[in-house]
């Protein structure tokens, strides 16, 4: 059994905890996320309201817990979508070169020339906003980045002699891509994907802010921060709790990605017994 890197343990624990908190939010949260109370507006953190309350007297802790659900769904869901679309395209572009590569790269250039938020809006604006659409929109926005990174790793790998040896054996393209190239391409892709999760959460929040993502009164970290903005001087805790939660998520996921990269790379492992 190889020793797992410390980063993987810490990052993994944080992410698992976050997912658990999000999943069991209805059981853990002390109040409903949309329960308003005009008497309890702008209450600072106290024993009753651990993270205080917002301008409608809603409990910030409960809203943050529920918000984790939406944020994590957008983060992981969108990244999964961009991985599923981006990695195969990148592998093919880097492996085939020539015309296919040229077309794919110009396509990604077009997508990348739009600011991510614009692209997200473009996808969402056509139809009525909803959560699945937001996930897909954010996922598509990050496809070009993953295509590019997968392609560049593949380009390096196709010239390696073990790939040539596979050609000399008469292996099919699908085998070479899946069994020879992909396992070696994972480390940078995993790191990039873990960064993308955090970007996706932020982009989801931004889309919510302009009213294209999560709809009020449902709680989303981005939406919460956006709503808290006018009161930042009077009641900073409203923005602080989701901000802090986002911060922890980002750190946790990045540690996880970094740890995965180390664990996936046989050369970085301490030599095994024997």
């Amino acid at each position, binding site marked *: 059994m190889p020793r797992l890197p410390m980063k993987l343990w810490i990052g993994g624990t944080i992410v698992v905890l976050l997912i658990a908190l999000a999943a069991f939010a209805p059981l853990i949260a002390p109040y409903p996320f949309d329960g308003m109370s005009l008497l309890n507006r702008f209450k600072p953190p106290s024993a009753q309201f651990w993270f205080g309350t917002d301008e409608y007297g809603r409990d910030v802790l409960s809203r943050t817990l529920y918000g984790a659900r939406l944020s994590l769904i957008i983060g992981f869901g969108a990244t999964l979508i961009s991985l599923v679309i981006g990695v195969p395209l990148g592998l093919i572009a880097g492996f085939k070169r020539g015309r296919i590569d040229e077309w794919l790269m110009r396509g990604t250039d077009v997508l990348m020339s739009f600011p991510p938020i614009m692209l997200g809006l473009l996808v969402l604006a056509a139809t009525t906003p909803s959560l699945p659409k937001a996930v897909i929109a954010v996922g598509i926005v990050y496809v070009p980045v993953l295509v590019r990174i997968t392609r560049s790793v593949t380009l390096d790998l196709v010239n390696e*002699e073990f790939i*040539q040896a596979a050609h*000399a*054996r008469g292996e099919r393209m699908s085998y070479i891509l899946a069994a020879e190239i992909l396992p*070696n391409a994972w480390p940078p892709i995993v790191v990039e994907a873990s960064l993308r999760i955090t970007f996706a959460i932020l982009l989801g929040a931004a889309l919510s802010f302009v009213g294209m993502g999560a709809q009020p009164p449902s709680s989303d970290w981005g939406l919460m921060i956006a709503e808290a903005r006018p009161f930042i001087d009077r009641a900073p805790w409203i923005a602080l709790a989701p901000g802090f939660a986002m911060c922890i998520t980002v750190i946790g996921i990045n540690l996880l990605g970094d740890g995965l990269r180390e664990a996936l790379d046989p050369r970085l492992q301490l030599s095994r017994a024997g």
Partner: protein
Amino acid sequence: MSQSALLSVSNLTVAYETRKGRLKALDGVSFSVSTGETLALVGESGSGKSTIALATMGLLGPEAAISGSISFEGRDLAGLSAEDRRKVRGRDISVVFQDPFTSLNPSLPIGLQVAEPLIQHLGLSRNEAMKRAIAALTEVGLPHPERLLTAYPHQLSGGMQQRVLIATALVCDPTLVVLDEPTTALDVTVEARILDLLDEIRRSRQIGMLFITHNLGVVNRIADRVCVIYAGRIVEIGAKNDVLNAPSHPYTKGLLASLPRLSARDHQQRLAPIGGRFPDLTALPQGCAFAPRCPFAEAKCNEPQPLHPLGDGHAARCWKAEALRQTPWPVPEAPKTIAARAPAMQGELAVRDLSKIYALGGSGGAIRWTRRFGLPWLKIERPILRAVDGVSFAIPAGEVLGLVGESGSGKSTLARLAIRLIEPNGGDVVFNDKSVNKLRGKALKSFRQAVQIIFQNPDSSLNPRRTVGEAIARAVTLHTSVPGKDRHNHVENLMDRVGLPRSYYDRYPHQLSGGEKQRIGIARALATDPVLVVCDEPVSALDVSVQATVLNLLSDLRDQLSLSYLFISHDLSVVAHIADRIAVMYAGKIVEVGSTTAVLEPPYHPYTEALLAAIPLPDPALANRHRTVLKSDVANARADTGCPFHPRCSRKLGTICETVTPPVVEAAPGHNIVCHIPLKDLERVPSVLPPERVTS
């Protein structure tokens, strides 16, 4: 030789703390270099020879624990402050590193890089410094030094870059120059020119040189004294002639014995490799570090070994040195345990008029008016490189064809064309009377099964995420009918064949040494049960002793399995050792082809002659043998018309060589030379190889 020691290193020990414990890179190293003397430090990778260079220059990082003294012109360098040390560096002691391609800053002009030490150390003005830089560039034999001042490194060839680095090292008139493998990255014909230059500079300037190399032939060419290093300890030191003529430490004997002999008669003699693995530097034994690999080892070798004097400053760290003086290194017998395969009935690969053209990068080239459909038409002409240009040869079943050429000659492209990893622009590859380039589906699969390849770089030829067993098993699954349950066993048999322990089945490539990785590459190629194996520089990345093991393995396998090889190397002595016939390639064309004996003896193509003459041989009697020196530092400088070799040829006849494509002349049946020079003139050229000698 002056007696005053310029540099004297005594009891130098360098250690690093690692996770596995204290790693001793150097252990009690003592030597001295006098004014005007060249001391060569020889060792394989990991021996610590470069650490000595860095320690002398004071360039080791803070993590290195250094003890012992390095005294230069009477001053102890170890006691100097970092600032004083810096003042010595580049002014009194300068250094030339191995790789000219990374030693020069790509974004600064040459002139600035050569003049920089003058401005820095001697406080010269820019104009003054540039004048001295021109003088230095002239001294190292570079043409048009004034024009070079504003040139950038990428505009120069490797050999010219190395000359620039030597000029930079000499510009402040240092008394000692440290050269760390200065010619290893260069082609052999260019290496010969650089070695000549270094020798001349040492003589004219009377500077001391600390020359680090792994190549005993180069040592023979340049050194006065030799110091052989193994696992951080000096195992033998002495005058060059003493060490090379009468090697006294078993390791030195082994190193010399493992070199392929370059000789027309007994070139296929079995090599004598050094068995075993390089020791773990974190757990070195108290006694002789070489004992585990030494055929003469006894119990007493486990005691600490002092340097045992043998007279005339010759000493060896071996208590048996005196007794072993006449004993040569033993040559192992070919293993007979593994059953031979019936000779392949068929498997002739022929290559006919094969060409591969690469378009060179975007810019450059020209736009020209041509006509198309009778109308004026603009045509963009991109510069092209004819990597392989009309090459034909045939490898009958069971034969080894050696293909030799310097970097850029197109030999690797040819290898990939021959097994259809890349498609040719013209010509044909024929295997068993079928055109390979037309094969599809099943027929292509059976070609892939019959023809395999072994690569140069053991690090890149194996998938780092596959275990040894998986890598070999995949080829078995794909191309043989071995049933699933026997596959594991079959792979283990293949590992036996290439001499790998079965316990390696579940190891990953990074846990193995270079030689072991190369064996896996060989086992993987054999797994499809091929009849022809293309070996693309299979031993170039390996140390000499390991190289001998792999060469022996390849020739044993050839005998056992009746394989044929297309054996590619830049090293003519390696090719000559294993090949039945040799083809010499220059700038995409084969200039000479013939049986190994015929190629090694006159008549030669002028390029073959130059290649043979340039190879440094480790025999002191031949240190200053007659050499034909080629023009230009550009290996494979090519010409578009006439003979591709005419820009470098020392026997060029005149304009005919520049304009007319040379004819193929049959010197003997099967021995062809592509040259304008009449055969009888070529026959008069004396042999560049040593006359056959009686060896002990």
